[in-house]
């Protein structure tokens, strides 16, 4: 199947006439998001984002390679997007379509080009060894707004990830196992998030977090990526119906509010995850006492 089946005329006219009265089919306000859940996996660097029915999993992996000859002092950071038939029957394995192209370009511009990750900190020995950080995004369920969900998952996963510690003595490099030394966090310069706006009726109605049906009926979209300090990492409006210059600017103001919320949510989720991992706190770690079998087990062994 090359593309999603287009919604029927009835469905799309109903949706559009409802939107004209500022009503969305699922009862949300025009600028409301579906319920977001952000969970981290047991391994470092896995984040699972659910946005209504949309679900995206981000996974970070790290390995040692040689750096590019023209970028000797930088590590390598690549982002892969995997749109498999698992997410939607319209996605085919090994065939690149526009959804994937635009998704990967937006993430590339938002996170890589804006310098969110300090790639110089991934360098081990200049020109010889560096870390290659691979971020992979798996779209597990597609119900619209892949861009926002993917960007959120990716930033959260980068913040959650820890790489192995290294020690460089002259030419000798030691990479410590996770059990030998506490793995260390990545250097994240800022946290950009994407907010996409779909518009209808020649830009009169702007909607945040569109579902798949809403995406299929829209006239165009504006994707704004920014961090909570109001720095815009990228804006993309690829054609579609022309809108006022002012309404594009109002998108950036709305995006700033939204991004602050995302930032807070990620910080809280990371803190909760840390608390969960650090059971018993420092005292439990420092204690030399071994766990003793409990009384009931002793009774059992006597028999």
């Amino acid at each position: 199947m090359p593309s999603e089946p287009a919604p029927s005329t009835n469905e799309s006219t109903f949706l559009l006439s409802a939107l004209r009265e500022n009503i969305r089919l699922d009862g949300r306000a025009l600028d409301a998001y579906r319920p977001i859940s952000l969970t981290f996996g047991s391994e470092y660097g896995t984040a699972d984002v659910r946005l209504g029915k949309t679900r995206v999993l981000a996974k970070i992996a790290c390995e040692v390679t040689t750096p590019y000859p023209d970028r000797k002092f930088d590590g390598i950071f690549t982002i892969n997007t995997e749109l498999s038939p698992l997410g939607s029957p319209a996605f085919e394995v090994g065939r690149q379509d526009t959804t994937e192209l635009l998704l990967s370009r937006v993430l590339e511009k938002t996170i890589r080009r804006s310098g969110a990750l300090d790639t110089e900190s991934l360098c081990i020995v200049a020109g010889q060894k560096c870390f290659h950080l691979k971020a992979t995004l798996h779209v597990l369920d597609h119900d619209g707004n892949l861009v926002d969900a993917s960007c959120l998952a990716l930033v959260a996963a980068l913040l959650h990830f820890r790489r192995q510690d290294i020690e460089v003595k002259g030419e000798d490099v030691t990479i410590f196992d996770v059990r030998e030394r506490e793995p260390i966090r990545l250097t994240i310069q800022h946290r950009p998030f994407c907010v996409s706006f779909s518009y209808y009726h020649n830009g009169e109605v702007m909607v945040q977090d569109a579902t798949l049906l809403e995406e299929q009926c829209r006239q165009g979209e504006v994707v704004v990526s920014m961090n909570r300090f109001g720095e815009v990492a990228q804006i993309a409006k690829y054609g579609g119906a022309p809108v006022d210059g002012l309404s594009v600017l109002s998108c950036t103001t709305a995006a700033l509010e939204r991004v602050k919320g995302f930032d807070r949510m990620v910080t809280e989720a990371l803190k909760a995850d840390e608390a969960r991992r650090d059971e018993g706190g420092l005292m439990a770690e420092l204690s030399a006492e071994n766990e003793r079998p409990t009384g009931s087990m002793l009774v059992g062994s006597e028999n």
Partner: protein
Amino acid sequence: MPLDSSSYSIAQLSTQAAADGSSYLEMGLTKIICTVHGPRESPTRSGSSSQSPGAHIETSISIAGFSGTDRKRHGRNDKRTQEMQHTISSAFSSTLFTHLYPHSTITISLHVLSQDGSLLAACLNAATLALVDAGVPMSDYVVACTTGSTASYAGDGEEADPLLDLNGLEEQELPFLTVGTSGGEDKVNVLIMETRVQVGRLEAMISVGLDGCRQIRGMLDRVVREHGERVLEARVA
């Protein structure tokens, strides 16, 4: 900020005789040839795949190896190029009257001979001229230009003075955006920004960009009218 249109930009129509429409555009040192084929019957790749009632717009951009300062092969699968192709296709699909040509394809091929900044803007302008030459009905010209902000994003917003129409060097150093308009005054059709900039700067950058688009629109309109007059004179003679 007036664009010096006399010596700076050269635009011609009907440069390629065999194509349905063609144009040649220079914006500074960026040079582009554009040819348009169609509207013609869609190649039957997958029988009922065309769900949209109107014509399908296909864009292909080929960037010559000698176009930049370093000789470099540009593959067709370069994601940046593919994104530009998508942008151009969707910018025109809302401006051309595609509903007049059901089950047809309009092919826009852009050949970049030399690049020195404002590549996407130049591509959009060249494509507009070629589509006018091909006689495809459209509601308005799609015109685009780039604007940059002089101060870096770390500085304060007061001294930031927007620049219009950046060249290659400026694009590497400054935050910039490409703005394209169509459908009357101040209607933004395309807006692409890829560099980090403070949100406060955007308003000035966009308004300067819209002003630039208005100037370019006037320039393209003049070129089209002059070309039309020449064609008419040739018919009469």
